[in-house]
């Protein structure tokens, strides 16, 4: 046995191998006897592969800089400990950490389904703002100062239209 599979949770030699098929994608988890027992994999009353995948993907030690959510102060270490985020803005702060996990955990990586009307209104305002900002930058760059002044006023109007506190998450 040249390269025995290691347990995704503790690193011991794995003897239990699970396969789950979601949307024609194959997800594999390798576990040692002990972890399989404690995670209830062998228990017919049920276990959640999604939870396992979540924990397994958190296993590699985070290295280097400490990533911190600006809004709530949550760190990657906190996430590793709790498996939960600190606030909605954490999804932006830990984008890189979460992106590879989502594909393993879910059927897809992009939301399909219900969209809250108010959040969408906020989103379209946000998009408009980003667009205007680009236009403004471009106008300044090319020294079209009259246009720039117009864009600046428009940006001001849009910002007034919605609570600035709510921009962060959209």
């Amino acid at each position, binding site marked *: 046995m040249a390269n025995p599979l290691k347990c995704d949770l503790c690193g011991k030699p794995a003897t239990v191998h699970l396969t789950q098929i979601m949307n024609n994608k194959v997800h594999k988890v390798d576990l040692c006897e002990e972890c399989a027992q404690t995670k209830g994999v062998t228990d017919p009353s049920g276990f*959640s592969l*999604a939870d396992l995948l979540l924990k397994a993907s958190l296993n590699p030690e985070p290295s280097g800089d400490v990533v911190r959510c600006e809004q709530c102060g949550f760190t990657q270490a906190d996430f590793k400990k709790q498996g939960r985020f600190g606030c909605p803005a954490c999804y932006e702060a830990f984008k890189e950490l979460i992106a590879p996990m989502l594909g393993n955990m879910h059927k897809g990586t992009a939301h399909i389904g219900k969209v809250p009307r108010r959040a969408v209104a906020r989103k379209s305002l946000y998009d408009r703002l980003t667009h205007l900002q680009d236009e403004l930058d471009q106008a300044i760059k090319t020294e079209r100062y009259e246009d720039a002044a117009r864009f600046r006023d428009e940006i001001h109007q849009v910002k007034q239209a919605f609570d600035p506190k*709510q921009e962060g998450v959209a």
Partner: protein
Amino acid sequence: MKITPLFETPSELTDPASGKCAIVLTTRVRLARNLAGQPFPGWAKEAQRSAMLAGTLVTVAALPQMKKGLSLNLEELTDLEKQILVERHLISRELSSSKGGAGVAITRDQSAAIMINEEDHLRIQVMRAGFQLKKVWNAINTLDTDLEETLDYAFSPTLGYLTACPTNLGTGMRASAMMHLPALVISSQMEKVVRAVNQLGMAVRGLFGEGSDASGSIFQISNQTTLGESEEEIIKRLSSVLNTIIEHELNARAKLLETDASKLFDKIGRAFGILQHGQLLASTEVMNLLSLIRLGVDLGAFPETRRPVIDRLFIEAQPGHIQYSARGSFDSAQRDLLRAQFLRNEFAGFGAPDFSGVGKN
């Protein structure tokens, strides 16, 4: 008691109209929702949690669906009251043991409940007796849309509804059915079923959700994934899995009748005898006995009208309910005595099983 109204009005779970689906006891959908710019309950400070509760409980209680409903701050409830809410599936175990700033609003008919400051700011749930996934989804969709009028949800166009745990991201929806699968349990096929269901991306849990055992042969089947698939698609996929399980359960029942009918009838008959004459009954034992009686109803050994009685007893035989009806706090040994007494009363006029017509239609 603050929760007394729950016992005084008819509820979806304890008084279901007869003739509901034999195998699916209840259908439930829950949505996880959070408010933009606010720390999730697990990370929020005590004061933030209290402010969130105070703010949202008012909004939630003002919904038209909540008319004449109950809105409760968990801190004002006794342990027994919390336990009763858990036994009625109106709050989760997690909420009942939360550290403060937690609450729940419950509709008058107890078919909908909104938990505040559980894992997410809001956990909205709607449940109905029987196999009613679409109807439940429509009801909860309306409730959620109404709430969104006043609450500013945390939502990302790419990731969907933002939840404390990434496993709920996207739709934030968990649709589930509580299924009664005695024949699959008796014929030791449940492990195989659980594996197959897991492979299809659905989770299997016990009666009280995560980590609970499957006493009474009752299992909760739900979707595991929430991102990359619309609510309707998830419901469609879950429905087809549920239908397959129903088919397997029915096959297992037919097989039991074919190969060893007298052994099965013996189990049901003994269960009936114990419920009618037992003197000390623990709740797990009762769940298993009631499960057999329910199977007896499905097979035609008892009249159909008895099924809702069993479904009510599944809840009323739980420890919290036993103490509530005996008006006091009792230890587990005393409860077993009270539970046996309660069930002897319930089964005194139940009518003996008649197996003569079983399997002959």
